[in-house]
């Protein structure tokens, strides 16, 4: 764009394709990001209002009803003691994995395409974990006593039972929620300072940014501390992320239920989490690009293309782990497990099992192999949506459908969801609502990271070809 050097058409093409090679004066870029936050149409407020009403009704009102009346208003029953609540918990924790994957793993491996959307992904982590927390608290019979699960000193010397996978889960999810929130906030500080500098005095936004920017100026010391901290976070949060979903899978794998007691569940769940998480990231990016001002500059087809490749790889890994889990259980020949596998495929919910395979494997493989298709935002949005539906089916099959079959045939009974459908919709609405609110309050694009990347990238001629080079800033 604002470039004065003469360049060949090949270079121009590269610039057009790559955000990192298309630098813009930094003042202008800041302006664009601020503008994207402040440009809000009536449609936004309409959706915002509708979602608020939905959250108030489906999440808080319905949950209140459930707390007062007991879990009887939900569909959970004798063999399926865990219903959609746990499905949603696993689902939302899965969604939250994308944020860490993108911002930590890609940061560690210096994958440059991550730069414009790390924050969008990190926001998903935090907001997804909040929904997972809601889901797991809804699931509890006496939620007002949930603080007993926390290690709090007490006069009875009764502490949580660390034999229980749920206790590990609680520690892991708390760790993950806290660390991902801190990891979201740290790189946000410079951008909040930028927003503070560009907000006129006397507005409430100024106060908001001033408080949150903590007085950040950008001195050498501040940058050094921040960069060191981000490095530590990027490396340390990866094992935390893996541990979280592995431990969630152990909630199932450590149990005596047929079909659950599987050693492959840990990695299988982690890959599944990344699968749905990447799908969700792509959906969010497509929506942000389509609805927010100036976002077409930041989020380009190259990003969808890069995530599409990752999604394809993850989809293949998921299929591998699924097959691994399936064939071992099937070949093992335990009569209850065989009964369960038959129930999955040929039972009344068999359509869900096949739907899962179509959404998670067939459709991604059919579409994502093509570079042009996976660069098309609306198409990859649909793929991401279907992957999320498929992954939700997967969790539904693992939780309530597998619970139908146990070692006491007398108790077998199909699960029919009740109020938890509303509550699930409520968490989804709350997730979108939080995201919408965040998109108007904090810069969705990590401006300083994009600017840093643009500074580090250059074009260089080698022989007859101009290639992209990246310098090591750190």
């Amino acid at each position: 764009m604002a470039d004065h050097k003469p360049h060949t058409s090949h270079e121009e093409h590269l610039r057009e394709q790559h955000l990192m090679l298309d630098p813009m004066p930094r003042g202008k870029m800041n302006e664009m990001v601020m503008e994207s936050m402040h440009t809000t149409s009536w449609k936004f407020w309409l959706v915002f209002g509708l979602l608020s009403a939905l959250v108030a009704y489906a999440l808080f009102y319905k949950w209140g009803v459930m707390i007062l009346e007991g879990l009887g208003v939900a569909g959970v029953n004798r063999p399926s003691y865990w219903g959609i609540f746990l499905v949603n918990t696993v689902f939302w924790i899965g969604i939250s994995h994308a944020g860490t994957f993108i911002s930590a793993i890609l940061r560690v491996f210096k994958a440059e395409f991550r730069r414009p959307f790390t924050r969008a992904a990190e926001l998903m982590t935090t907001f997804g974990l909040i929904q997972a927390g809601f889901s797991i608290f809804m699931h509890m019979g006496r939620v007002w006593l949930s603080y007993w699960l926390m290690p709090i000193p007490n006069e009875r010397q009764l502490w949580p039972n660390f034999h229980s996978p749920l206790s590990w889960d609680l520690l892991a999810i708390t760790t993950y929620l806290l660390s991902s929130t801190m990891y979201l906030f740290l790189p946000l500080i410079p951008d909040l300072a930028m927003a503070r500098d560009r907000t006129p005095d006397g507005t409430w936004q100024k106060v908001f940014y001033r408080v949150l920017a903590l007085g950040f100026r950008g001195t050498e010391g501040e940058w050094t501390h921040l960069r060191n901290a981000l490095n530590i976070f990027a490396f340390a949060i990866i094992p935390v992320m893996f541990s979280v979903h592995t431990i969630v899978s152990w909630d199932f794998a450590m149990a005596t239920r047929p079909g659950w007691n599987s050693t492959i569940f840990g990695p299988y769940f982690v890959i599944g989490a990344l699968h749905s998480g990447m799908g969700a990231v792509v959906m969010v990016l497509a929506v942000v690009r389509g609805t927010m001002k100036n976002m077409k500059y930041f989020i380009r087809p190259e990003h969808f293309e890069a995530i599409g490749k990752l999604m394809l790889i993850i989809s293949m890994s998921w299929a591998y782990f699924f097959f691994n889990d399936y064939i071992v259980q099937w070949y093992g020949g335990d009569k209850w497990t065989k009964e369960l596998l038959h129930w999955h495929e040929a039972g009344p919910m068999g359509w869900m099992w096949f739907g899962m395979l179509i959404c998670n494997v067939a459709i991604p493989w059919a579409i994502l192999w093509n570079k042009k298709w996976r660069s098309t935002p609306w198409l990859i949005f649909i793929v991401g949506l279907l992957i999320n539906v498929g992954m939700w089916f997967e969790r539904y099959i693992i939780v309530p459908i597998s619970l139908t079959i146990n070692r006491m045939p007398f108790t077998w009974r199909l699960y029919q969801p009740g109020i938890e459908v509303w509550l699930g919709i409520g968490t989804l609405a709350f997730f979108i609502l939080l995201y919408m609110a965040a998109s108007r309050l904090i810069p969705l694009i990590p401006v300083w990271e994009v600017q840093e990347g643009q500074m580090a990238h250059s074009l260089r001629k080698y022989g007859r070809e101009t290639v992209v080079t990246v310098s090591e800033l750190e």
Partner: protein
Amino acid sequence: MTVDLNKLHAVGAIAEEAEGKWGMVIDMDLCTGCQACVAACAMENNIPYVEEVDAGYGRSMHWIRTERFWEGEYPEVKMSAYQPMLCQQCGKAPCEPVCPAFATVHSQAEQINLQVYNRCVGTRYCANNCPYQVRSFNWRDYQDSRVRPEITILANQFNPDVTVRRRGVMEKCTFCIQRIHKAQDKAKSEGREVEDGEFTTACAQACPANAITFGRIDHPESLVAQLARSPRAAHHLEELGTLPRVTYLKEG
């Protein structure tokens, strides 16, 4: 520092677990499936009356149930024996370690499984992990007369020795621990040990066919221990290694 495993009850407890203290023998040859045990248990232990809709949806809350199975297709149906199913009071219970709040624990004094209602937060993990599916969850406030006015008249028949549970709490068979305590208290006040047959559980007491026998399984001369040594004796899902305290006598 050396850790005395016996002091930590780690080694000693496991060896002891294999034996148990209280035990039950159910003779499937004698069981007629009359459900007297189910009714007696409900009366003794304040088990809520779950309405038709909930019961039909798999939420009946009985601590003991009579399972019945049949073989073959409709007119040529062969009924197999009735199988009363209750908490097996496992020595190594899968339900216990999974509770994050220590609400279901192993009583070291009585060698049975306990459900501590007031500690339960309702994660329902124990019920999921119970291979026998004998735990029942209070889905609603079935016994609160403010919620269900029709229960008010039933409130007078509550057993004062057993807690009345409220919504969101898991519960299960306790081997009538209130009766155990009562008998032990009486024996202690008289300065003696509890005698075999001095008391029994509600289900065993109510069984018209005497199919259920309860007593000290660790006293070799007690009736329940003698029956448990029968060649017909079998344990449910023994392959899981749960060390059940309830012995079934097979047909034959």
